[in-house]
Structures are given as C-alpha cells and as structure tokens.
C-alpha cells in the first residue's frame, strides 16, 4: 500500500436525485469519502443503501435527468465538468468498473476478444494487433490458460467464474488507477467466489491500484480492503480501518449489522434490527437511522449528524460518545 499524499478520489457531500414519473427521487443523500492512490476502500451496506449508485456516480453513468450536487474530483479533474471526449478517455483509462454479473455485462453476441480489445481500439486508438496481444497476456495473468482460444469464444461458452476473470482482465487492460468493483463475487457460487476474489486482490496489489469494493458482506469486504465505509439510506454513517471494524464498530447501525450475521461457532439468537432498510428518500430531517435506532433521541430525529472523527473512526452519530461508555454496548460482536 503506497502512502497517500493527495487523495486520488474525493466525494464531498454528494447528493443524487433521479428523475421518476412524477418528480425526483433522492437516492444518495450525503456521501463523503476519499480514496488515496493504491488504497482499497470497502463500501458496505444493505440493498437500497446506495452503494452501487455511488460508484456509478463517480463514472457519470446515471440515467437521463439525474441531478448531482456536491463534489466529485478525481486526481484534480472533475468528471462532471468534462466534455464528451474527456469523459470517454476518463472512463476508458482512469477508472474501470467490474460488474456484478458477467453474463449480463458482456455482450452475448460478440467474442471475448472483441470485448477485451474494444476499449483499447475504439477509444484509445491502439492498433488491433497490439490490443490483441495485450489482451491475451492479460488473460493469462488472471489465470486463464489457453487464452488465445478463449479470445475467439463467445460468453455463453465460459463458466461464470471464468467470465468474471475476463471482466477483471478487461478492467486491468486499460491500466486504470481506480477500480470500481460492484459486488464482483455475488453472482458466483461459493468456491468460485474465493478464486475470483483472490485474483482480484492479487492483481490489485501487484499494480498498486486504488479500489472501491462494494459489498453487502462485511466480512468479505474487511478481508480485501484497507478501510471500510458503511452506508445506510444513501448516507455514509461510519468510516473506519477494516481491521478495527470488527473489534470496535461505533455507529449503532454498524454494530447491528455485525450483530446480525449468523454465527458458525456459537449458537445464539440472531439479533434483529426492527423495521426494514430505508431508502434514501424515506429518511426525514434527522439521522437516517433514527427510526430503527434503539438509542434515538429528540435531537437525532431533527438534526442530521455529520461525520466526525471519534476514536480513529469517522462516525455520523450525535450520541456516540455517550454510547461508547455504555455497559455492553458492543455485546454480540465476534471476537
């Protein structure tokens, strides 16, 4: 992990509203995070928390009519101020996204080789032969022997695990500085998951790439990232180093998340968070988690807490100092 001087990516008070049939719907309420060069950040939350939306916002891949307020900066550039040509170059060579389901994100009617070389030849104007050689080499690096033959095959001829390796290869081909991985192993079966994650992690470290790793699985994220940001209802509620998070989660939601994981070693009752996950547009004026939080008070419902440094973490909670001192506040977390 390289030392960070200037952050590579800065998101500041990001708010995103999408156009729906009769108005606008908020999907990201207040997202602030930074990623240093070579650093791996986990973005963890339940469905509907806005994690996928966040990385799509970074690449400006939002549907028409979307409104974005706040700041998005990548290495001094501002994707939201780029013209079309600059944006295409930004997407092709600065950042790269790895999608969740490779069967859906690769065109079934074109060959693997076409998929890999397309970005290079059509956007970066690399000659085709060169691009093909690079693609074959990249495929070998992600562990696909027989790479030359695979280039000529079609997506339906490869298994899910192989296909996901292909998407990783494609992402790495353009030599980006930031990888955006959107739950890359969720669509795979368990044994393949491990393989794919191992390859992704290895390649990332080798090239010293920054990465945002989106997941709903806290443990998985903790294993491959340096820091983790926890999202709920379109807002970041806690930001902490991955190692720390297990032992010392601070925000009530994070604790509840950790607590709600099924244990394989101890037999005990799952603790349940009452209610259901809220979407960004359902939260009111105060803390987004106020409705379901056991510790919510009047101030929590009326004033939005900002992310503040507490004990080495960044936490968005009014009462965190009090709560920390409570007896048994961290009961139920794994050792």
């Amino acid at each position, binding site marked *: 992990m390289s030392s960070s001087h200037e952050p590579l990516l800065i998101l500041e008070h990001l708010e995103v509203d999408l156009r729906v049939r009769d108005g606008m719907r908020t999907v990201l309420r207040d997202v602030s995070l930074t990623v240093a060069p070579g650093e791996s950040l986990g973005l963890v939350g339940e469905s509907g928390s806005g994690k996928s939306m966040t990385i799509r916002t970074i*690449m400006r*891949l939002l549907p028409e009519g979307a409104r974005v307020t706040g700041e998005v900066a990548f290495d001094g550039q501002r994707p939201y101020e780029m013209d*079309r040509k600059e*944006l*295409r*170059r*930004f*997407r*092709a*060579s600065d950042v*790269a*996204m790895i*999608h969740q*389901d490779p069967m*859906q*994100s*690769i*065109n*079934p*009617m*074109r060959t693997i080789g076409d998929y890999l070389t*397309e*970005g290079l030849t*059509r*956007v970066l104007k690399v000659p085709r032969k060169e691009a093909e050689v690079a693609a074959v080499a990249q495929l070998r690096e992600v562990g696909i022997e027989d790479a030359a033959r695979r280039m000529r*095959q*079609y997506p*339906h*001829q*490869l*298994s899910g695990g*192989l296909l996901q390796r292909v998407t990783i290869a*494609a992402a790495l081909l*353009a030599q980006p500085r930031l990888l955006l991985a959107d739950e890359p192993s969720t669509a795979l079966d368990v044994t393949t998951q491990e393989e794919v994650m191992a390859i992704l992690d290895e390649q990332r470290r080798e090239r010293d790439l920054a990465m945002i790793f989106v997941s709903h699985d806290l443990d998985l994220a903790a294993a491959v990232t340096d820091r983790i940001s926890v999202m709920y209802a379109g807002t970041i509620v806690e930001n902490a180093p991955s190692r720390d998070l297990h032992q010392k989660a601070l925000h009530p939601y994070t604790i509840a998340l950790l607590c709600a994981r099924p244990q394989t070693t101890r037999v005990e009752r799952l603790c349940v968070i009452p209610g259901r996950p809220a979407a960004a547009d359902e939260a009111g004026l105060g803390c987004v988690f106020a409705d379901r939080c056991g510790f919510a008070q009047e101030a929590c419902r009326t004033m939005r807490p900002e992310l503040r440094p507490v004990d080495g973490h960044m936490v968005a909670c009014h009462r965190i100092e009090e709560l920390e001192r409570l007896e048994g506040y961290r009961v139920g977390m794994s050792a």
Partner: protein
Amino acid sequence: MPAESATSRTVARAASAPVRWLGGPLLTILIASFVLFMALAAAPGDPVMTLLGGHPTPEAVAAMRAKLGMDHSLIVQYWNWLIAAAQGHFGTSIIYRSDVADLLAGRIRITFFLVAYAAVIVVAVGVGLGILGGAVKRLGSAVATIAAVGVAIPAFVAALFLVQVFALGLGWFPTMGAGTGFFGHLWHMTLPAVALAIGAAAYIAQITRATIFEEQSREHVEAARGRGLGSVDVFRRHVLRNAALPIITVSALTAAGLIAGTVVVEYAFGIGGLGSLLVSSVASKDYAVVEAITLILLVVFVVTLAIIDLLQAVLDPRSRAARKVG
C-alpha cells in the same frame, strides 16, 4: 393477425436440428395440402356434370370420371394430384377450359414482382423508421403513433386512398393494371406495392423500435458506455448488432406474410396476378385453379419460414452447437 413481441416470436421459431428442419415444413405442407384437397372435394357441385353439361349418359359420365382420375378413392386422388403438382401439372381449369399451368405461368411473375417490390418498401421504410424512433428520443412517440395508425390501415383502403391522391389527384401513377416490361411494372405497381406494404411496414417499425428499446436497456450496453465507448459506437456495436437478428427474423416473416395480401391488392388494382385469379376462381368454383394457387402459396410460405429458421440458427452465436467449457 395479432402482433407479439419480436423476441417471443423469435423464440417460437427456435432453431431445430437439420432433420427436424426439413421434416417440419414437409409435414406442414403434406397436412395442409391434404386438408385443403379433402375440404374442396367435399364441396358441393360435381365437376363432371359441369364439364359434360346437359343430360349425359352413364357411359359418358363414367368415361369422364376415368379421364379426370376420379374413379379412384379420395386418398389416391389426393396423392396423384400432389405428385402431379410437384411436377408442374395442375390439371385443367373448368372455367377457362385450359391447362391450369398455362394460366399460372405469366401470373406468377407478376405476383412475385409485386411481393418483392412491397417487401423492399417494408424493410426499408419499416426498419428505417423503427431505428429512427428507437435511436432519437424526440422522434420516438411520433414514430410510435404513425406506426400504430399504419398497422390499422387495411391494404384495400390504402389502395383507394393512394389512387385518389396519387393517381387521380396528382396523376403520377396509373390507376390499374400491371404494365409491361420491367420499368412498366415498376411504374404501374408502385401504388399497389405501397398499399400492400403499409400495414407490414408499420408493424416492422413497431417491432424494430421495441427491440431497440429492449436492447438499449440491457446491462452490457451500460457497461460498454462505462468502458468509454462513444454513443454512436455503443449503438452500432451493442444495440443494433444485438437487435439485428430478431429484426431480420420478423422482417422476413412479415415479408412472407405479404404473399397473402396480394390477393386483395391485385383485385383492387386490376392486376393480373395469382391473387386476382384466386379470387375469381373461388367465386366461380374453379376448384382445380383454387387448389393449384393455394398449394403454390402454401409451399412458398412454408419454405420461406424454413429458410428463416435456418438463418436464425446460423446467425445466432448462442444456438451454434457449443458446449459450455470450463
């Protein structure tokens, strides 16, 4: 006939193994022609009596029956007819008193010209409008509206409106007839071809636009944009390319369907093709001609469908015999 989504119809015509591919159409032709023959045989009226006229003697009747091959059982008659037809012998027309095959010869060319002309219009205008409606957001609903109205215009109504405006009003085209020679045909059959094409072109426009929409919303299209490809590239390489197969399939199917529409259009424009002959034969109960023309149209239709099936199997990488590796 009621419309369905492009993909569902494409799936319905799923590729079959080569043997089944040949067997299906053959079986269809056999069954349909059998049903046709039997149905017409059950029709009232006796061709023998019609041909002989007056009060023929029993011997004359028997002789005529033998001559027409009607002294065999119906099944045998059917088979004889089918074999003869395959060799181009369609029997004799009661009304025209001549060989049916002779009657058909010149007319087949004319009908073929009309259908081909209309098919070109259908594909060019239909697919073109559909792509326009799918690619350019602002034109989308305009195209959809035009197409919705176009589908509802029957060929004969279109025919009369076209004649009124373009033939009588502006005088650009003749009001009827098929003309002679290639350019004569082209000039005479422009209005008929347009009348024939309108409904089908509108339908193709709808299907094309719907298919393009469907393909545009797929995840791999957004993924391609995310890799930095420009919108033209994305559209051409990922939307259009994927939409091509269903659109081609439906276009071919619709063009095949034009064959039935020639009946009405030829009648409306006084064109001497297979269609108008069929109409008059049905009206005058000239069964030999009816059987012949229906059989021809049926065979052409079924063969076209089989070719489309084959095309689909060849063009779709997913249906090529490829086992999952890996």
